[in-house]
Each structure stands twice: as C-alpha cells, then as structure tokens.
C-alpha cells in the first residue's frame, strides 16, 4: 500500500477502542457499515437515485476510489472473491493497492478472472465477460451528479431530479449535435434508469453503457468525496439518452485486438516506438489474456511469432 495507514476517522473514545478499531474486519467500524448498508438498500429500492451517506476517510486519498472502497467494505465477507480493475486492468497501481488493502483488512481471496469474482470493484470500465447473477459490480465514482456541469447548486439539481426535469441535459446533448454533427460525449454518457432517474454511469466509455442495461449483476456506485451511493438492480432498464434523429451509438473500432484478435471489445491504443508505431489492444486485460490462453492470436502476436520462427 503506497498510502500510509491512518487511524479511522470515527474518534475513538479510549486507547482500547482505537486498538480494536485497527483490527476491524474490512477496515470500517460496525456502525459505519450499518449506515452504508442502509444506504445501499435504499439505493436498490430507488434505482438511479443518489442516496446521501456519511462518507468516512479511508487510508487512501480521494480520487483513489474511496467511495467504491467503502461500498465494497460494507458488503464484503469471508466467502467473497474480489477482483479490482482500473481502466480494465488488474495490474495498475490503483487496482493493486485496493486489492492489497482488502486482502489485508478482510483476508479475502482475490482473482483477476471476471467469471470467478463475486465482487468486482472498478474504475472506468465494465468487464467484457458478461456478468452473471450473484456478482456485484462496484463502481468508483468521482462526480455522481450528471447535472452538475449544467447546474452547480446541489439544491437545484435535487429539485430537477425530484421534478424529473431533465430538459437541460437534452439541450446540452443537442448542442453537441449542432456543433459537432453528433453527440460528442464519449465518457460518463448519461443514462436513464428504470424510466425515471438520469444517472451518471461514472467515467466509463459509452461503449460500456449497453452492458448496464438489464445486467444480471447488481451494480452499486460509490462516490466518496461527494458522499453518494446509488444502484442499478439486476434486470433493470438502463437507457442512454439520445434523440430520434441521432440515436445512441457506441464507439466502433476498425480493427480487432492486436494481441487476441477480439472484435466488438473496447480497445486501448499502445504506442510501440518513437517512429509512430502503435497497436490497439483490449483494455480488459483479463479478457485478452484469457483469449490468448485459449489460442486466439491477434495480428501483432502472429507477426512476432512469424519473426521468431524465421
């Protein structure tokens, strides 16, 4: 863990309590877990609505997914198998730190395989492998309010959600079309949940939006700094906002993954050299590695294998 271990924010009343608090299962004290659990249940009962909660300080800086970490800490048990991804990868600093944190404070098993995980905490991606019943996807959310960039005042955005007044959001998207000829928003593309609340799907690429729609998995969202929890139950409608003459479209990639040959997946650009060489590979590293292990070969691997053989 690169971040220093700090004391829990709930002021301990005695040295004995402080000592005990340091050994809390999943780090959070029981009162905090109860508070977060109550918020999660209400979030599930009101799909897409942002439930305020008393976010605690975690032993990692904001921006490192403290909201997602608190949600995971409130639901995780000894039987769980945890996967943590950042931009689709299990081996980035953020993902490695959070995984190590839960292995230390909850002694849970960890995995990189999407299909084996019971809880997947994510920043910026939804795994390519279709999630199943019994899995929980926990999103780390920086800014939970989809209307915030249109209206800075919380009292006003609350009112807009209360009155289902989402005209401004449509105006913003339509301005995109007027200016760019299409909706330019590619990340955190707003969705409507269960035909009622407009929700920020967190900064995932809009490529992932269709995966949220009627997913078999429970989706939970935690925003630490903004102190909000929201949820999408399984089998729930999640519809990306669009217009009749400009229907929602996901990003298209004009080539398959250079390593595993996968199509219809989200690709990242990787710079190979300083002469402009580059390749496009799966952003979901587990998906890519699993395919390679199954014998799928992309263009780049095929080339290097040919070269090795020559």
């Amino acid at each position: 863990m690169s971040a220093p271990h700090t004391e829990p924010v709930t002021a301990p009343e005695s040295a004995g309590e402080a000592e005990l608090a340091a050994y809390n299962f999943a780090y959070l004290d029981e009162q905090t877990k109860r508070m977060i659990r109550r918020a999660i249940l209400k979030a599930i009962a009101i799909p897409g609505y942002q439930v305020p909660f008393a976010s605690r300080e975690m032993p990692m800086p904001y921006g490192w997914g403290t909201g997602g970490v608190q949600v995971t800490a409130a639901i995780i048990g000894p039987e769980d198998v945890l996967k943590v991804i950042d931009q689709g990868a299990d081996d980035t600093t953020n993902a490695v730190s959070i995984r190590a944190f839960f292995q230390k404070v909850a002694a849970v098993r960890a995995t990189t395989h999407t299909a084996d995980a019971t809880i997947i905490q994510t920043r910026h991606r939804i795994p390519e492998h279709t999630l199943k019943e019994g899995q929980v996807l926990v999103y780390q959310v920086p800014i939970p309010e989809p209307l915030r960039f249109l209206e800075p005042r919380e009292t006003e955005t609350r009112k807009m959600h209360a009155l289902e007044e989402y005209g401004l959001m449509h105006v913003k998207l339509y301005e995109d079309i007027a200016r760019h000829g299409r909706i330019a928003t590619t990340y955190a593309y707003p969705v409507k949940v269960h035909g009622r609340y407009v929700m920020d799907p967190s900064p995932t690429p809009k490529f992932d939006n269709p995966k949220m729609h009627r997913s078999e998995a429970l989706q939970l969202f935690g925003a630490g700094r903004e102190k909000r929890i929201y949820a999408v139950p399984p089998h729930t409608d999640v519809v990306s906002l669009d217009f009749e003459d400009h229907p929602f479209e996901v990003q298209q990639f004009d080539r398959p993954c250079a390593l595993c040959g996968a199509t219809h997946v989200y690709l990242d650009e990787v710079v190979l050299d300083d002469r402009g060489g580059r390749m496009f590979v799966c952003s979901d590293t587990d998906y890519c590695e699993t395919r390679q292990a199954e014998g799928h070969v992309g263009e780049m691997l095929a080339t290097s294998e040919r070269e090795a053989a020559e």
Partner: protein
Amino acid sequence: MPDRTETFAGGFANAVFDSQAVFRTLMDCMARPGQTGEVTLSLAPPAPLGIAAGAVMLTLCDHDTPVWLSPKLSQSPVPGWLAFHGGAPLTTERHEARFAFFEGRAPLPSLGAFALGSQEYPDRSTTLIIEVASLDNGQPLTLSGPGIRDTAGIAPNGLPADFLRQWSGNGALFPRGVDVVLTAGRRLVALPRTCKITAKTLTESVAETPASEG
C-alpha cells in the same frame, strides 16, 4: 418487567460476520424481489419476533434509526432486547420511524402514516418488516419490476388483509414510498417500492398449465 435472560441472550454470536451474512442475504433479496433468503445462523430473538426479523433488526438498527414496534411487540421483551443489542431508540410516531416491525397477524396500519420520504429525498422512508405465517403456501402473487427478469412468484400466507391494495397505492407514490421485508421464521422476501404485485387469478393459473406442458 421483561425477562432479563431474554433481554441479554439471543443476539449474534459474532456480530461482525453474522451481520455481514444477514446483510448480504437481505441485499440479494432486495435486488431480486421474489427470491427467498434464509437466515441460517443461530439467533434467538424474544417471541413474538421471528428469527429473520430479529436478524434484520440487529443488522440494520442502531441509535441513528428510530424504530416503531407494533403494539404487541412493544409490550413483549423485544424493546429490551433491541435496546441491549442494537441501542436503537423507539418511537411511537410512525412518520419518524426508519424501521417498523410487525409480528404475525398484526393489523397493518395505513402505509401512508409511515415516513414516505420527500420528492427530493425519497430514501428518507420507513422500511417495514412484516412477519407472515409462510412465504409459499398462501395466495399466489406475481411480482414484476427492477430486479426481476420477467416475473417472479411468491405465495405468502398471512399477509395483512388490505396489503395488496395498500401496496399498489404505495407504488403510485414512486419515487416516494415505503419498502417492505416479509419474514416467516428464518426466511425472508424483500419488496422494494418498485415491485409491482398482482394476485394470480384462477384463469391465469389454468391458462398456464397447458403452456408448461407444451
């Protein structure tokens, strides 16, 4: 004077892991209305509070959550048990309650008298925990809504008389409204406010039979 043994005994053997297990069962059920959860750990809440209802009480209630108890529960050893294990304050004001508990066959007051949340904060509403005799040998009900692929079925026996009528009124208030957990001994089913419930009619059940054979 409540029995002291009942007050102090019968809580979670291991509060941290037991409450996590009960919460996950409850969360899964809230996310999948119609799915039956079971509280398998040992817990002995004082009668007439059931095991699942007692488990939900200890998992979610504390000094931040005013609890309303039915008249019969308030006169039982339950208030002492709750005070000792959960520390939650009791309220007689239904609209102040975060949780409300009903023993089996308790009459159901108007759901609208409980906290329904506001249009801005619909989460500030009561969750009702209602004990029934059984979840599967009573009136067949069809559930639909978030958490359910097409439809789900439950057949609670001992649902309060006008529950279905009240529930449909509750649904009309969305996003405001109460949420309900039906408990029967160790078992529970959750009914979030989004859940639509219709009573299966005789003709529907008859019509389903040939289809399932074909």
